[in-house]
């Protein structure tokens, strides 16, 4: 029996899991269209490597990462690339992002696959490469690229590898059903990861409300050293930090990652994806999604191709449109409301809840905090939710940060118990977002300051250089002057010319001779080059001027048209446009003048 610890806080919400565990996992089939976002993971978005109109095979790479952290995207079935563009993606903002749209041809034709029967003969880095190019990212919700997670820094030895089968959030049963039906693959994937990391201990943590899953895994892991740990059901025991605490008694340090204390946590679905990538050569193109809620006629778990639109899935699960009041992606605690059903399933989507009005009622209005302290009691991270709430509400983000706001795991236990129904976790998310934005802005302004200062320095340097050169020139000139003077004096003193007057007249004569010679030379040069190039230079000049004039006129016309438009529409930019028109009038006039001048100059010579 594995020794277990406890974490502080936690809640016991109604589970609603049996809704979706009565049916076995069903294949959802191939929809008419698959929408594949280029970013289904944390890191840089992938870049398309196919063009519109290309025919792709099932499992073919359609987007890859060339730099930074990220994983490629593969075609979930064979078909034609219909378009590449912005489509709504599953995101709490409800915004769009770049997606590749694939129209399946129905043949479901596989590309060449390279299964590996004995991965132990390969290098560990080779296996990590396989996992990377199969596009495996954490399937528990965050979508962290698995190949990076499986390669901790050299000074961080992983002693304990934990497979997270707790699935503590209500409604969701995707991991539960995967463990029940695909226990062999789960164990195989875990073995691959264990071989890469070489931990001393391998544990699968399962909440005690999933006895069938535990039994299946126990059978599959017979003869191995894998421990199956049954942990008490309590939300959020499936949180990475909480599960580590329950299974090892250790706490992940604030701001740190589990690898800092020699622990790593992986998701059940990720283990299956790793097993398939290695033993079948299959990239991550499908996942198990729980479709549940009382507004569905046939709730259950579905094996869904990535990119399948939510509305197609809801249809498969027998949606009763008149009963549904709210669609939630993810669990009821940490998920978010979907505003549209056209969004696709991605690598991190684990559950879709179609809830009736009575099931997930709209939150009651927020009331004043009565300082009951229940939020602090249930907080699994032992934070001070009340203080955090006040600071977040008052926009005193520094103080909130000082109270370890960034240790909050967004579990929502505080909001769940709040008798004043304050959306506490929403306030923390808001505060975290604001702080991140401020940090990014600070970074940007620091860089701007650096560049500004560098520029000032450069300008100063240039100015100084100019000054220096000017001084040098002045010095050289004055030196030459004094030298000349000295020479003249010397000549006078030597008595070559008897009186001063003769000397000056000689100098003047010399200067005259020089001047004559130089004018002669200049005339000769002018005679050489004078006539032919001048018209040649003049002609393009005219052309340019004419072109400028035409451009200015065209611009003026468009501006006037815009002004008319704006005036008829009563837009508020009329004043600005009027200014612009005036400016353009000036410009036209200037261009005209220049043109006329140039013409009058060129005509006599011609």
């Amino acid at each position: 029996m594995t020794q277990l610890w406890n974490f502080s806080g936690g809640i016991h919400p109604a589970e609603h899991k049996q809704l979706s565990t009565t049916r076995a996992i069903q294949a959802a089939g191939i929809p008419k269209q698959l929408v594949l976002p280029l970013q289904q993971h944390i890191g840089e978005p992938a870049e398309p490597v196919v063009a519109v109109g290309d025919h792709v095979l099932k499992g073919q790479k359609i987007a890859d990462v060339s730099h930074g952290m990220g994983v490629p995207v593969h075609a979930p079935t064979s078909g034609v690339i219909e378009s590449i563009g912005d489509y709504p993606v599953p995101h709490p903002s409800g915004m769009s992002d770049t997606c590749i749209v694939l129209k399946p041809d129905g043949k479901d034709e596989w590309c060449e696959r390279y299964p590996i029967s004995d991965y132990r003969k390969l290098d560990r880095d080779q296996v990590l490469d396989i996992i990377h190019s199969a596009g495996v990212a954490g399937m528990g919700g965050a979508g962290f690229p698995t190949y990076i997670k499986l390669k901790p820094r050299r000074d961080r030895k992983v002693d304990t590898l934990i497979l997270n089968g707790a699935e503590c959030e209500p409604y969701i049963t995707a991991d539960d059903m995967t463990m029940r039906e695909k226990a062999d693959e789960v164990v195989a994937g875990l073995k691959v990861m264990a071989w890469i990391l070489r931990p001393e201990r391998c544990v699968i943590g399962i909440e005690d409300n999933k006895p069938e899953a535990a039994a299946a895994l126990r059978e599959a892991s017979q003869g191995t050293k894998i421990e199956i740990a049954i942990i008490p059901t309590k939300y959020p025991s499936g949180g990475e930090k909480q599960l580590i605490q329950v299974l090892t008694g250790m706490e992940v340090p604030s701001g740190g990652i589990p690898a800092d204390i020699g622990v790593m946590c992986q998701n059940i679905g990720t283990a299956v994806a790793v097993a398939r990538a290695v033993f079948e050569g299959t990239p991550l193109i499908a996942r198990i999604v729980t479709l549940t809620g009382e507004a569905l006629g046939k709730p259950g778990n579905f094996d869904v191709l990535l990119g399948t639109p939510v509305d197609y899935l809801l249809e498969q699960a027998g949606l009763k449109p008149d009963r549904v009041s709210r669609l939630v992606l993810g669990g009821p605690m940490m998920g978010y409301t979907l505003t549209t059903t056209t969004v696709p399933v991605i690598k991190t989507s684990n559950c879709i809840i179609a809830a009736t009005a009575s099931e997930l009622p709209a939150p009651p209005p927020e009331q004043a905090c009565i300082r009951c302290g229940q939020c602090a009691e249930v907080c699994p991270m032992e934070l001070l939710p009340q203080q955090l709430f006040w600071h977040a509400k008052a926009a005193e983000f520094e103080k909130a940060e000082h109270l370890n706001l960034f240790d909050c795991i967004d579990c929502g236990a505080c909001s769940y118990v709040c008798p004043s129904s304050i959306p506490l976790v929403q306030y923390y998310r808001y505060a975290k977002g604001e702080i991140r934005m401020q940090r990014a802005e600070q970074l940007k302004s620091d860089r701007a300051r650096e560049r500004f200062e560098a520029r000032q320095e450069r300008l100063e340097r240039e100015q100084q250089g100019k000054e220096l050169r000017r001084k040098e020139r002045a010095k050289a000139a004055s030196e030459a002057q004094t030298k000349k003077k000295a020479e003249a004096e010397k000549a006078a003193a030597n008595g070559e010319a008897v009186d001063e007057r003769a000397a000056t007249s000689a100098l003047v004569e010399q200067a005259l001779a020089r001047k004559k010679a130089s004018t002669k030379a200049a005339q000769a040069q002018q005679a050489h080059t004078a006539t032919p190039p001048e018209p040649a230079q003049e002609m393009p000049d005219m052309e340019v001027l004419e072109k400028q004039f035409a451009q200015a006129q065209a611009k003026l016309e468009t501006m006037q048209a815009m002004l008319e438009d704006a005036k008829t529409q009563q837009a508020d930019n009329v004043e600005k446009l009027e200014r612009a028109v005036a400016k353009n009038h000036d410009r036209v006039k200037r261009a005209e003048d220049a043109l006329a001048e140039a013409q009058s100059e060129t005509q006599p010579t011609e």
Partner: protein
Amino acid sequence: MWTGIIIAVLVLLGLALVFGGLLGFASERFRVEGNPLVEQIDALLPQTQCGQCGFPGCRPYAESIANGDAINRCPPGGESTIKALADLLDVEPQPLDAEHGVEQARRVAVIREDECIGCTKCIQACPVDAILGAAKHMHTVIESECTGCDLCVEPCPVDCIDMITIEPDIRGWVWTQPKAGVIATDRQEANS
């Protein structure tokens, strides 16, 4: 009795001299160059270097604020900068001085490249060297370095620079503050 008083006076005098000397030495030895307050103020300003405050850059304005100038002349910083400055200097926050401009969403300059004649005027105007190009060759703005200061728009002889508001995208998105709830009776009405 007098000796006691004299001793006490002498001792205190001696101590005063010793510490006075120490303090005098320290103030010379560890003299702080420049006004440290300027650095702190400069760190709060948005570093747009737009000159809308009437000073040639953020640092000169920071120096002026340190000398007691108004803190409400920075439109790019807006309300939040004024609040931060007020906190730092312990003065009352004032509304933004509209004479120097209004707070706007973040913008970047974009050159319509086929219209650019390569005059380098915008390059000379850019306070953060965010425009790239050479004489008689097309110029372009390094978007990540542009502070949206507007200073390149005016010098352009062919008006080929647009100031474009940065639209919020999915990667820069953050949660907004939860709306203060309506009271219960309002909600019932809304539902019925």
